[in-house]
């Protein structure tokens, strides 16, 4: 069930440069099915900015009816969002889309979670659930620079966590793709910039790979065809997946990116 709810802010803080962690109360938390689902947030009561912003659910607590998001303050909408205080309410539509299939990896197997920048957050709940299940979890996260890094300690609670930065100011200098070459694992769950997803998809076509993709959205629920991508292995070129309602998580071979 998709719900539109006025959600009260439980906590809201900046956890890295322009990176905010936002926790809200929502009755629809009970409806969340898998890590990697997202919500669609209305950032103002007016009509400018007009569209909702899609933000991933990074963790949730069904007992408390709370969930947490982590987002980067970028443009007009997230800037407005970042000004909201604890106690205020925000109009959220969710939960949306299909998340990471925790069932696809077995106890004792090794899952590699690869995140780039603001693609890291949805992997947090995933890591938690995989760990609870007895899966061995490894994390490789890429950021631009030291000041962008967040949640390293939190992820370390669940498994080995390697951080790379483009400028080398923290962790390993370079891209996540350089680092994963040296790791062993049974499957990959990844979320981040498209070039990163593309590289991983290409390199590991022999492994189970699950990608979470981003695209500019209109409705967020599958009605407007704004967020489609072509499906893999379709000679006609006409078949498609809607990222908002079929995804945002896909098996790598399902989609062309």
């Amino acid at each position, binding site marked *: 069930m*998709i719900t539109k709810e006025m959600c009260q802010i439980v906590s809201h803080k900046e956890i890295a440069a322009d990176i905010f962690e936002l926790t809200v109360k929502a009755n629809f938390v009970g409806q969340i099915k898998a890590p990697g689902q997202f919500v669609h947030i209305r950032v103002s009561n007016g009509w400018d900015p007009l569209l*909702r912003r899609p933000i991933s659910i990074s963790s949730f607590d069904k007992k408390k009816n709370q969930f947490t998001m982590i987002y980067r303050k970028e443009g007009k909408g997230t800037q407005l969002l970042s000004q909201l205080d604890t106690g205020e309410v925000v109009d959220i539509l969710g939960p949306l889309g299909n998340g990471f299939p925790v069932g696809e990896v077995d106890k004792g197997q090794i899952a590699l979670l690869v995140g780039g920048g603001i693609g890291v957050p949805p992997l947090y709940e995933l890591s938690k659930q995989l760990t609870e299940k007895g899966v061995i979890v490894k994390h490789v996260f890429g950021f631009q620079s030291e000041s962008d890094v967040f949640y390293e300690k939190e992820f370390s609670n669940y498994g080995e966590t390697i951080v790379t930065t483009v400028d080398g100011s923290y962790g390993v200098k370079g891209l996540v793709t350089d680092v994963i070459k040296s790791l062993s694992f049974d499957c990959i769950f990844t979320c981040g910039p498209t070039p990163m997803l593309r590289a991983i998809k290409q390199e590991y076509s022999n492994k189970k790979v699950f990608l979470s993709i981003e695209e500019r959205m209109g409705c967020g*629920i599958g009605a407007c*065809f*704004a967020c489609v991508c072509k499906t893999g292995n379709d000679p006609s070129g006409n078949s*498609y997946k809607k990222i908002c309602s079929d995804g945002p998580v896909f098996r790598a071979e399902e989609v062309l990116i």
Partner: protein
Amino acid sequence: MNRLNVELPGLKLKNPIMPASGCFGFGREYSQLYDLNLLGAIMIKATTVETRFGNPTPRVAETHAGMLNAIGLQNPGLDKVISEELPWLSQYNVPIIANVAGSVEEEYVEVAREISKSPNVHALELNISCPNVKTGGIAFGTIPEVAKQLTRKVKEVSEVPVYVKLSPNVTNIVEMAKAVEAGGADGLSMINTLVGMKIDIKTGKPILANRTGGLSGPAIKPIAIRMIYEVSQVTNLPIIGMGGIQSAEDVIEFFYAGASAVAVGTANFVDPFVCPSIIEQLPELLEKLGFDHISECTGRSWKQNGQLAYHRS
């Protein structure tokens, strides 16, 4: 007292509020959120003969109080719409207005002939105004003689009344309206989107992969109101108005301008419950404004002393 029921050619509506074409798919998604029976009608996504993938992404960009889209008529194609979407929609007691599109005249004609046979399709909306496809759409929507010709051809084959959807990207909207009236249109739907563009400040390139897109939302409302005001005074066709509607007040403004029913597009993305909310709020607003029935509002802005509206249900 039912203040909202209206009757237009082919359409007996419990209320004059319907989602606009392309902003509501074929209804499945919004049916998860509320009972579609609440709606006056549904304008379904443009249908073409063949399945179309449409334009590359990104397909939407936000602008001030508006958005650009360049979906490019993505749709499952005539066969699938007839065999899957329309039968699914028939579980609801809601008339469907089928948006008919194509690249050439023959394609429009084929879609119109076939789709108008579906029992729950009560009217066609002839989409001669889509700004986001390279062929077809735009020429049909900007040259009066071409529009008239196409309307006539479609009327010949359609089993239900035909509403022609006008493009605002023209010098003279009245001329277009009169042309399609002469071509035999039963009604008008207006306006479609205005061609616009947004450029990414960082990359220097247009945000939309298609470069240009159609501007919709509150930003274009004054243009829609003006065009409906102009057109409603010089044709006898009922008008389904649209362009930036987001509230019950906006609906009244469109009626005042000359509309007899309205469609809500972009606002569904902002508030997915906008259609049922408006339907709920309208009776009270009419009461406050002193109208017994919404049809009394049609054309008020140009009628003398609030003379009764022309298209009274």
